[in-house]
């Protein structure tokens, strides 16, 4: 069931928010011991909120499509009175006195929060094998990683514990778990959604967005959380359109660019086949699928990495005297940032701006890009290397190299499930658009989804 379907059922009195919430909590009780998606469950307050939502609806006070819908938040969004750990020992007992903007807006839209979701420590990694709160497991096969850093969000949505989850994406952290867990994941344009009250990883690269069961659900959540917020200095004073694609939306004549280099290199063969098959489907739906030459993607990727490492080192500097607070993999990444100089950081920001200017030419040729989201499907928990063809690659790089460029460029990007491997693990593609053109990428995603490019929930759960 999607949010749109649940919203209809709520208004037809076929189900109540309290029943939806009970059902979600029972599912969490059954599945969380296996998947470890939640760090903190707020069942009692969720049930109270669901009863209030029902009473409001009965009284005719309708807050919109998210009213009474069970969701959960990645554990780096501040929640007033509810522990917010960032998946870290540093914040193990931290209880904020205010809500993050995203939490505030979803509550105002009537969504019912069931709790806080597990994640890669400090959002700095892609396995969600958290050394302090335990590894999150993939609902399609619990021996495999769910991706990260929003791994609990991906697992909870895929396992149908919640209808939607919030996530953050600094170098792929919404799109990677969405891809590996077979959910939709949307990283909006930088500035579209307020970062206020979200623990920072890298200020100029952090994007907030939803993971959902369908593309239209991602649009519904974006409708609720988008908009200018003076509390976030990067928040854009842009008008907020309706992001939900209309029923039977079409992509006739829409120009989809397929990058001729970088994004289709060193791919798992099943990933490449699934993405190319979906491109053929897009063509059959009337889109103009054409090769496109992109500016130097490796350059913006390298700049993005320098910026991320520098900003992370600055953010975590006060805690680095106590190395025992960090997991080994995160510490190794943070240490790398400490070797970079101020000139490195500024030059990376200069390269970033040049890349941003160079990319403007791309949008004269095409309306969006389609690439694979990750080069490989979910690896087993504990693996550090993956074989692609005759080469071995670090799993961090195999999962981030196709998504990271769009953090540095700040462009909106949607991850959409587009198939399963022969062993039943999800494969996904990524649709990237012009700055602030989320409506176009959501339309492409919805048209593909309507045409059958989607995944049923995993059988294993």
């Amino acid at each position, binding site marked *: 069931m999607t949010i749109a379907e649940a919203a209809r059922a709520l208004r037809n009195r076929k189900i109540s928010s309290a029943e939806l919430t009970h059902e979600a909590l029972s599912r969490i009780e059954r599945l969380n011991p296996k998947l470890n998606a939640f760090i903190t469950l707020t069942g009692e307050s969720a049930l109270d909120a669901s009863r209030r939502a029902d009473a409001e609806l009965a009284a005719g006070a309708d807050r919109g499509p998210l009213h009474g819908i069970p969701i959960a938040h990645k554990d780096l969004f501040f929640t007033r009175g509810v522990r917010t750990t960032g998946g870290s020992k540093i914040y193990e007992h931290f209880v904020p006195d205010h809500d993050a903007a995203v939490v505030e807006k979803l509550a105002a839209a009537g969504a019912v929060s069931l709790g806080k979701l597990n994640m890669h420590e400090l959002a700095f990694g892609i396995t969600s094998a958290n050394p302090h709160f335990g590894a999150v497991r993939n609902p399609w096969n619990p021996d495999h990683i769910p991706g990260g850093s929003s791994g609990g969000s991906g697992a909870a949505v895929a396992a149908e514990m919640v209808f939607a989850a919030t996530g953050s994406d600094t170098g792929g952290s919404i799109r990677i778990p969405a891809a590996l867990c077979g959910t939709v994941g949307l990283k909006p344009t930088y500035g579209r959604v307020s970062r206020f009250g979200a623990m920072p990883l890298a200020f100029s690269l952090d994007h907030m967005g939803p993971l959902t069961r369908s593309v239209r659900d991602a649009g519904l959540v974006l409708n609720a959380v988008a908009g200018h917020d003076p509390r976030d200095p990067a928040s854009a004073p842009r008008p907020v359109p309706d992001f939900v694609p209309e029923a039977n939306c079409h992509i006739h004549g829409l120009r989809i660019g397929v990058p001729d280099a970088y994004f289709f290199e060193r791919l798992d063969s099943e990933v490449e086949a699934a993405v190319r098959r979906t491109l053929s489907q897009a063509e059959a739906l009337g889109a103009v699928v054409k090769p496109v030459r992109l500016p130097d993607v490796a350059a913006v990727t390298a700049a993005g990495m320098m910026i991320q490492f520098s900003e992370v080192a600055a953010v975590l500097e006060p805690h680095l005297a106590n190395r025992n607070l960090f997991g080994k993999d995160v510490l190794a990444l943070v240490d790398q940032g400490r070797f970079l100089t101020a000139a490195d950081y500024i030059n990376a920001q*200069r390269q970033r701006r040049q890349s941003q200017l160079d990319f403007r030419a791309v949008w004269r040729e095409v309306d969006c890009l389609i690439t694979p989201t990750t080069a490989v499907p979910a690896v087993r928990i504990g693996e550090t290397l993956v074989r692609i063809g005759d080469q071995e690659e670090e799993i961090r790089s195999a999962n981030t190299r196709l998504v990271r460029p769009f953090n540095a460029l700040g462009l909106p990007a949607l991850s959409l499930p587009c198939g399963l491997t022969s062993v039943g693990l999800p494969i996904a593609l990524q649709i990237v658009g012009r700055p602030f053109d989320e409506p176009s990428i959501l339309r492409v995603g919805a048209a593909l989804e309507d045409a059958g490019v989607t995944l049923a929930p995993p059988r294993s759960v």
Partner: protein
Amino acid sequence: MTDWKAIAHARGLAIPEADVEAIAPRLDAIEAAFRPLAVKLTPDQEPAAVFHADPESE
């Protein structure tokens, strides 16, 4: 090859030598990817980060 241990020592970074050794190949890779780009930047190329004199105008 850059001597990362010497740099860590000179900058007073309290990172154990074994940890520096472990990340040295990654630091070399970052350098190899980024330094050639940085030297190509021309003086007119401004950074992406923008300072607003009036924070209200952000």
